[in-house]
């Protein structure tokens, strides 16, 4: 077998059980509202890239007589070649089971389970006849950041696992694609905010195609809505299971070049395409991050190839929309950390928020 599923590291399993649990909205019990939480997975295999998101948000416009209700949605994007399919599917509350404090979720026929140190995802979405069974073994320790400033009076917490190895299969309209030892990424976010608040972010995962390359990279930058002022930024490098180097704030120089122009791309939910014309994507054709501190220096170059948009209505107002641009492309990373040269090429998936 070319890519046997690795054995989960008990220390990583214990860390994830301790940290990566569903928080759920305190508004269900009369606490503060405007809560959002999602468990997010990326899988990159030759010829296919997947984005899978189990998403819970407080209902900003509940039906009369309903209070403290969370909306449960699956967001799934699949890129095969240059083609994307995907959807945002909302589930009735009686079709959703997400025990607080656990790492299991059921959204209709779709499930997330954390079993024996592996994330097991089972998808069954009829619109595109999409089914999948995936097992993701975490290869790195998670990073967690609680209550990070997002916008005035707003905070967001996040946990990420820079690298996992995914195996299983995906079926789309009766075509089955095997996933064998594919690089993958996971994050989990929760906090109180609304779409339309004064914030934006850029968030990217970069992984080597070569499974024996020990480096994994996550890039993030939080800014105001107009992207005139960054509040924090970071480049997180993992070497093997452990953090290898973290560059923060002024140790990073970020440059966006050109403009990614695509006349056609997927927008979900489809109706939001009416409210967010494709021309408004405003994305770079190339992103460069240069990080330097002491003797350590790293350069990351992301060259976007394709994109899909997830579009959220603003919740502050009855007009406006925020686009979460999911941009896939190639990443090259090179540099030197603690006297060791690092270099890799591989898949990158970056998310750019644009209002």
């Amino acid at each position, binding site marked *: 077998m070319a890519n046997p599923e690795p054995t989960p590291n008990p220390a990583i399993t214990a860390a994830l059980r301790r940290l990566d649990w569903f928080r759920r909205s305190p508004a269900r019990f009369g606490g503060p509202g405007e809560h959002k939480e999602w468990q997010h997975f990326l899988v990159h295999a030759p010829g296919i890239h997947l984005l899978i998101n189990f998403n819970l948000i407080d209902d*900003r*416009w*509940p*039906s*009369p007589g309903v209070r403290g209700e969370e909306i449960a949605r699956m967001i799934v994007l699949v890129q095969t070649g240059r083609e994307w399919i995907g959807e945002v599917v*909302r589930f009735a509350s009686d079709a959703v089971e997400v025990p607080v404090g656990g790492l299991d979720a059921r959204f209709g026929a779709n499930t997330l389970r954390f079993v024996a140190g592996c994330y097991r995802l089972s998808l069954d979405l009829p619109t595109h006849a999409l089914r999948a069974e995936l097992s993701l073994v975490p290869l790195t320790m998670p990073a967690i950041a609680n209550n990070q400033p997002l916008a005035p009076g707003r905070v967001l917490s996040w946990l990420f696992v820079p690298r996992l190895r995914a195996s299983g299969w995906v079926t789309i309209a009766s075509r089955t694609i095997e996933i064998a030892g594919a690089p993958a990424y996971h994050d989990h976010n929760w906090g109180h905010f609304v779409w339309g608040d004064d914030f934006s972010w850029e968030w990217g995962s970069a992984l080597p195609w070569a499974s024996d390359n020990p480096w994994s990279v996550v890039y993030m930058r939080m800014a105001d809505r107009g992207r005139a002022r960054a509040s924090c930024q970071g480049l997180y490098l993992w070497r093997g299971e452990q953090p290898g180097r973290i560059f923060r704030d002024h140790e990073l120089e970020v440059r966006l070049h050109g403009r990614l122009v695509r006349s056609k791309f997927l*927008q979900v*939910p*489809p*109706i*939001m*395409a*009416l*409210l967010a014309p494709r021309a408004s994507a405003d994305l770079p054709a190339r992103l460069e991050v240069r990080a330097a501190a002491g003797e350590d220096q790293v350069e990351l170059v992301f060259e976007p190839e394709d994109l899909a948009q997830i579009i959220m*209505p603003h919740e502050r107002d*009855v*007009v*406006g*929309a925020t686009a979460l641009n999911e941009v896939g492309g190639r990443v090259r990373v090179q540099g030197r950390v603690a006297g060791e040269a690092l270099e890799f090429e591989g898949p990158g998936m970056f998310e750019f928020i644009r209002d």
Partner: protein
Amino acid sequence: MPRETPIPPASELELPALGPIARLLAESFDLLAARLPDAHARMLAPLRGLELELILDAEALHLRFEHGVELTAGGGELVPGCPRIECRLPTILAVLDAKLSLVEAVESDALQVRADLDRLVLLHEGLLAYVHGAVRCPGFPELLTRLRALAQSPP
């Protein structure tokens, strides 16, 4: 100042000639007004004072926008000076499902619009405000389900 005459909810108008699409549209205006009055007001802001002839499949409607929407059965004939939009239900659903953009629908004549530019811009603003309300308003997913059912089984 002219006296404002309240317009009753569109779906309560005694208009037996209204077809199923018109009744659904009327219901959507009422729902928006009841559940998201801010969105309803945003929709009306650019449209106030405008009239519109709307031909949807075999149904001809006349809409008058004031501080509400007055929706009556139209004759289907061209009314001089009155903006007119004509399209079929599958086109509406194709636009809602992003299989066709609004621009593509117009350019391909699947959606036919006759209006002077000023009123066309106002109608477009009103339409977008209506959709902004629709994607936020509880109850609209059920209306959309009924619209799809109408497209599959026309009366």
